């Protein structure tokens, strides 16, 4: 079986990429193939990259407070493109109060500050859709 492929993405204008890079390395060290987008990706760029790279999971990192706008846009576009086999997760400074509605709008899981990378790794392993 081929290794799990993950797209780690930074949407919007947020420049905080320590978390994204740390998680990307941790996933790689856990045996996954990781594509990191770099900063300032539009929703279209992220979804296109995910489809082209045939990833199993999109992991978005966001600390700028734009999560309520950008995360649902990503899940909507995935839906529009007819993609249902990619696990979509997010992490960053996202208040607990916002999480239920984000999950309703298509984000599978959200990891808040202090989450060990092992928790995210296990989650991806158990939840990819193939």
């Amino acid at each position, binding site marked *: 079986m081929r290794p799990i492929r993950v797209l780690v993405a930074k949407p919007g204008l947020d420049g905080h990429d320590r978390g994204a*890079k740390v998680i990307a390395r941790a996933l790689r060290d856990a045996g996954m193939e990781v594509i990191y987008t770099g900063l300032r990706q539009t929703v279209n760029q992220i979804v296109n990259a995910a489809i082209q790279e045939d990833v199993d999971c999109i992991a978005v990192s966001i600390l*700028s407070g734009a999560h309520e706008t950008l995360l649902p846009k990503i899940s909507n576009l995935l839906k529009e493109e007819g993609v249902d086999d990619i696990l979509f997760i997010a992490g960053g400074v996202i*208040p607990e109060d916002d999480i239920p509605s984000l999950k309703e709008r298509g984000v599978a899981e959200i990891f808040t500050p202090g989450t060990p990378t092992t928790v995210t790794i296990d989650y991806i392993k158990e939840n990819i859709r193939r």
Partner: protein
Amino acid sequence: MFREDVLSDLKEEKKKFDEKTEKLLEKRPERKDVFYSGSGEEVKRVYTPLDIQEMNYNDDIGLPGEYPFTRGAYGSMHRGRLWTMRMYAGFATAEESNRRYKYLVEQGSSGLSVAFDLPTQIGYDSNHELANGEVGKVGVAIDSLKDMEVLFDGIPLDKVSTSMTINAPAGVLLAMYIAVAEKQGVSPDKLRGTIQNDILKEYIARGTYIYPTKPSMRLITDIFEYCSENVPKWNTISISGYHIREAGSTAAQEVGFTIADGIAYVEAALEAGLDVDAFAPRLSFFFNAHNDLLEEVAKFRAARRLWAKIMKERFGAKNPKSMTMKFHTQTGGSTLTAQQPENNIVRVTIQTLAAVLGGTQSLHTNSKDEALALPSEDSVRTALRTQQVVAHESGITNTADPLAGSYFIESKTNEIEKAALEYIEKIDDLGGAPEAINKGYIQQEIMDAAYNYQKEVETNERVIVGMNKFQIDEKPPTGLLKVDPAVEEKQTKQIDELKENRDSKAVETSLEDLKKACETDENVMPYILKAVKVYATLGEISDVMREVFGEYQQSVKL
């Protein structure tokens, strides 16, 4: 610094002490095999004159306010004046931020510090596609001079000093500030404050770059030149280690990479034909304060000494003010935990002590809820009170550099200075900071340190109280500040109105003139000022420069 006979006796005594202690350890081992500082450097059991025997007090330590400034930038330090308590704030609209500033001033804040939202920091108007969802979130949205007039309404700009965290479009925001001051009847030579204007660390760690390295450096030297003639009391740059540290660097990397950036700015200005003593006194720095109190104090001392030596020896500065490193400090955001957020108040207190004992000129203290959301007014007040308690109750402000002479502090100061200098030499070999950044060297070093840190936390080698030890079951926090999404709509509507009502011919001409200036080597600042005054928007001005200069392409490495 020590008599030969004292040292040789001590050497004997120390040998016996080591043997005795090692023997005792067989029965009662220490808590750890090796002890590490916050930055992962080994710390010895005890420090003695033997660790600093090579030092010469007059050359290496000296007096506060005197070369090499190890003990402080000014002679009387915090006896003369307390540091400026400067709380970084700004969110949503100019009106709301204006209200927060007035509140902070009422509460005893002594300087303003403006946080701009990301679209403003990256030169996009609020109605730009990429601004969607970001307007007013991490700071205030400024689209034109109109917003800036509201932001400083009722705040006399000849009385306050204002720090603006703005980099790629620093010239535009400074021009708006000058224009607002003029409307208040305040001339530019009376303005005091700082623009961050440090693009190199944006490429390294913070991410709000626009243009490639070369034109960005030119914009910075244009500002140096313009301000030395027109806004002489303005700090034209705040060379920032803060974000480098937040991105995961060690203390020594924070000093080394920041000073390497500083060297690049000095070289760029010299190349542009400026005299070192004309601009160097207006260079200022910005550092982080983390939890390892003693290591942090040593870091500040090492940075001051290293900068002084470089300015004197490498750049031949004559004016002592050119050699004096003045710096702002912010407590370490990345050290705060989302778990048991009250514990963050304690962390911020330790970090405040570090900054003050390290001789800071101004300080922002983080609020306890910053790992969760934008800080609420109550938590901002507690953070400001933390500074006030340290200032007025702790007693550490009564004397300059009280930790000097500690064998550990002096030894650690030497160690950090040496390690930082090694990074600077490595960067020199790569062709200077801009080249080292384009090659991804600095980013890679920081990333390695960040990843090591994360692994230490996850293996519990590093204890973070409340997060990987002493956890409790917690309810999700409530009462977090949330920015109304209507802000984006409001800003967009205002831009439409502005564009209908302004003199569009004048805007067009001013932008054409700016474009021409960008294409030649003329100083762009007067043209930016002209454009701002006729209400050209930040996005329009930045777009003109994007057209001429192009955009930076990030080198992505893992």
